[in-house]
């Protein structure tokens, strides 16, 4: 069967006719089970997806803000300090992995120290070190090599890649995102399996319906169609309800945007809502494929 034909026959199967649908008993526990399972799993999926996407955003922000800067500190007697700063900048310019480097201005240093000493610290008059901010490239530089070169050329320089201690945090957030996506895939798989099993249970329970339909000359596709439509609609309905309920729940979660940006509110934003809206469609596709396979297999067995 070509892809075109496949899609055509799938659409025909979904369009179906009312008469065929009446052949399958309208309700039953497998029906409710399917709707409920779809709803619960969609709810969980939205939940976990929201967690996961939030973790992803946190990881991105932290990565951006923190991962690629480090500081060079130059302490030297008053007269030599400017020369050493210039020497250090020269060294940094020629270091592979360093995207940029610049000395902090007096104001910037004062702002950095303000939490500790107040805003009035006489930075100019104090024998405090000068700071050079280094921006790394994606690959980062070779810390040991840079240290060795600096020791030779700028004796008063001390390299502090202090910002790197936050790297594990970024890793943690990224792992949380990965775990979240794994959970979503797990949920999707579990849902598919449950819908398949529910469909098979329904088919097994309706063995008599299948026998009668065959006896009166119904084609396989006619019988399968009645089941497939039923289950696809149920999965769509259930997962839509689940997504709607959990979407509202997530949307109602109070905003939680910490000044420091270390942790964001658990929630969704913009395009992420599209992911969520895709869940019912995915659930329907899964239900369609699962039920169709199960139905045709069952029909094949009933010789």
């Amino acid at each position, binding site marked *: 069967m070509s892809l075109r034909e496949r899609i055509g026959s799938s659409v025909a199967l979904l369009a179906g006719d009312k008469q065929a649908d009446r052949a399958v008993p309208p309700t039953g526990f497998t029906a409710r089970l399917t709707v409920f399972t779809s709803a619960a799993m969609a709810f969980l999926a939205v939940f976990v997806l929201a967690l996961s996407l939030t973790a992803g955003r946190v990881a991105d922000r932290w990565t951006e803000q923190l991962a690629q800067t480090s500081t060079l500190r130059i302490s030297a007697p008053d007269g030599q300090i400017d020369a050493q700063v210039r020497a250090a900048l020269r060294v940094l310019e020629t270091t592979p992995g360093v995207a940029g480097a610049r000395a902090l201005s007096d104001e910037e240093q004062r702002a950095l120290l303000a939490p500790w000493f107040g805003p009035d610290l006489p930075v100019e008059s104090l024998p405090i070190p000068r700071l050079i901010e280094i921006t790394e490239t994606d690959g980062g530089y070779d810390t040991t090599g840079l240290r060795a070169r600096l020791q030779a050329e700028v004796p008063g320089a001390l390299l502090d890649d202090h910002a790197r201690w936050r790297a594990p945090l970024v890793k943690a957030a990224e792992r949380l995102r990965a775990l979240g996506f794994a959970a979503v895939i797990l949920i999707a798989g579990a849902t598919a399996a449950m819908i398949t099993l529910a469909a098979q249970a329904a088919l097994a329970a309706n063995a008599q319906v299948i026998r*009668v*339909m*065959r*006896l009166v*000359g119904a084609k*396989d596709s006619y019988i399968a169609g009645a089941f497939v439509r039923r289950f696809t609609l149920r999965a769509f309905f259930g997962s839509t309800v689940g997504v709607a309920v959990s979407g509202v729940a997530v949307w109602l979660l109070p905003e939680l945007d910490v000044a420091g940006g270390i942790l964001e509110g658990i929630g969704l934003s913009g395009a992420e809502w599209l992911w969520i809206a895709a869940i019912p469609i995915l659930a329907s596709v899964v239900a369609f494929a699962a039920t169709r396979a199960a139905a045709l297999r069952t029909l094949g067995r009933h010789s």
Partner: protein
Amino acid sequence: MIELERAAYSYGGGELFTDVTLTLAPGSFHFLTGPSGAGKTTLLKLCYGELIATAGHVRLFGENTRKMDRDRIAMNRRRIGVVHQDCQFLDHLPISENVALPLTVAGRSEEADAYLGELLAWVGLTRQAQQLPPELSGGERQRAALARAIILSPDVILADEPTGNIDWEMSQRLLSLLVELNKLGKTVLVATHDMALIRAAKAQISARVLRLKDRKIQAAEVDL
């Protein structure tokens, strides 16, 4: 219409019957008898393609069942009305819809209106038309199954023990329905144990009686 040529069938153990050669000519009327468990139902299942002969050939309307795909068999079933021995229905639909089911499946449900009421009246189920199948008595179910088998006005009617649970007067009524259809040119094959029914039929029409016994099929005019 239906030809069996040296057909045999086995469910895995020994062969139930072998070398069955049989032609149901258009317009013929056959009875099939034989002891319980001889293979009457199995033979009927060969005739409408639910089972495929393990040896020999079965041809429906000239086509070999072994070479038909499932959709083809489904299409052929619409030309064959079958009364199963254990009548099965869609238990969630009323009898009227169950009887009209072959029309529905064939996409001709609009024809139901004209014919259905008359048919239900003939088999005595007018009052029960809106009941569900599990709410029917055994005999009522058998009558509904016969009605369902003939609603499409099929070329062939295969009835497996259609009067097992039905009283004598009603059996006569159903028999005369089958005789009527046969006179219209339909081919009829009835599996039954009821010798009185066979005798009654032979008074009205020239029916052949086949007897399935000891893995063979024979004409059995003698024991009536």
